[in-house]
């Protein structure tokens, strides 16, 4: 302590000066970063909400608004309790009728993770559309999972029926070689972008197996909230 006080009296001592300057600048930068983070946080959150809304409306045909739910211990709730619970987005049409639910899926692609949002329609128990939220696939090859219309057509009504025991899907969603699709639960791969196509199938299968059996038992929660929606 005493030596520190001594050196405080001699500001020219190189070590003290170094520490003072570094501390001062670190504090200044800490202040600046926190300030900007605080200022931009609401805008960033709003941007993310808009991005989700756009995606939900795209993957659930006919939907115009959405509401976010969280899946916790097999129940859908509107307030998030657990940090890593899954988000389920319910999509409603203009009259407030529940059209479908959207959920996130992710799998390792060719270059990093592919993050997807897919729309699930409970009436046909099928996937009605996907939207890539984030990916780093090769432009011109892997990014055909977004641009290729034939590939997107796989998800017009991709079978994802839940089995009788209501534990998993009746048929695993799999990606098959380009042009060899035979069943409704198969995805035709894009030739030249097989790894990315397979990743999409894997992501959907993993997420739908885990989430949809739970969501289907909870549909009344989503529909009830639609009644509240109407009352408003």
């Amino acid at each position, binding site marked *: 302590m005493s030596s520190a006080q001594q050196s405080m009296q001699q500001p020219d001592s190189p070590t003290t000066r170094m520490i003072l*300057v570094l501390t001062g*600048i670190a504090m200044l*930068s800490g202040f600046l*970063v926190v300030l900007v983070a605080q200022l931009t946080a609401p805008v960033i959150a709003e941007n993310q909400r808009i991005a989700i809304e756009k995606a939900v409306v795209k993957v659930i045909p006919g939907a115009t608004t959405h509401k976010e739910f969280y899946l916790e211990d097999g129940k859908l709730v509107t307030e998030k309790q657990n940090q890593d619970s899954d988000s389920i987005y319910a999509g409603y049409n203009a009259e407030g009728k529940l059209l479908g639910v959207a959920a996130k899926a992710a799998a390792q692609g060719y270059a990093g993770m592919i993050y997807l949002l897919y729309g699930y329609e409970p009436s046909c128990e099928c996937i009605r559309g996907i939207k890539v939220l984030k990916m780093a696939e090769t432009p011109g090859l892997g990014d055909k999972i977004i641009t290729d219309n034939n590939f997107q057509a796989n998800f017009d009504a991709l079978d994802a029926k839940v089995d009788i025991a209501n534990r998993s899907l009746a048929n695993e969603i799999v990606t098959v070689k380009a042009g060899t699709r035979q069943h409704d639960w198969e995805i035709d791969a894009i030739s030249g972008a097989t790894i990315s196509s397979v990743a999409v199938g894997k992501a959907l299968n993993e997420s739908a197996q885990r989430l949809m059996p739970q969501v289907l038992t909870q549909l009344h929660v989503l529909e009830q909230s639609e009644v509240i929606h109407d009352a408003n």
Partner: protein
Amino acid sequence: MTQINKNKDAITWETFSEGLWVNNPVFVMLLGMCPVLAVTNSAINALAMGLATMFVLLASTILVSLLSDFIPKQVRIATYIIIIATFVTIIDYVIQAISLDLYNALGAFIQLIVANCMILGRAEAFSSKNKPLKSIVNALGMGIGFTFALLCLGVVREVLGAGAIFGIDLFGENFQPWVVMILPPGGFLVLGGWLLLFDWIKQRQAKDEEQEGRANVA
């Protein structure tokens, strides 16, 4: 920089234009190649990256030149890095707030501005030795030069590789894009092309001046 300025602090056209042409950070000094090659696969990405880098360069230049008298020599690099990292984090938040799509497109390369040696190089070689105003003028020139260079690459790569410019289709349906141009190898090819062009222009200028010199002597 042919004339020797008697007044060291004088702000001349050269202070500004150094970064534009004579010492263009990309085409002459070959600094900061990582973002140059990585994010110039479209014109809009190149422009955003250039502007983000310019912001960090300007802001850190102001702080470094203001504080340079207080910073002990031994810790100057560490201090510059802290200052640069601060502004990189700030621009990272700002881009997220402006557009999530752009943020996703630029990916990790915004954070990697920290490691752009052009910015550290300017802090060390110019801002720490010159008055704030002069440093700002110089940094502005460097930033514009860097953005210009990125745009040069971005525009060529997007036109060849995607048949578009700033996302606007140029050639219609029948155009078969030269995909390799928006892939990493395309970055090297286009950069090589630009370097060739700039070197050729420079050599021709030098030759012209030489001939003029001879003519004057005769």
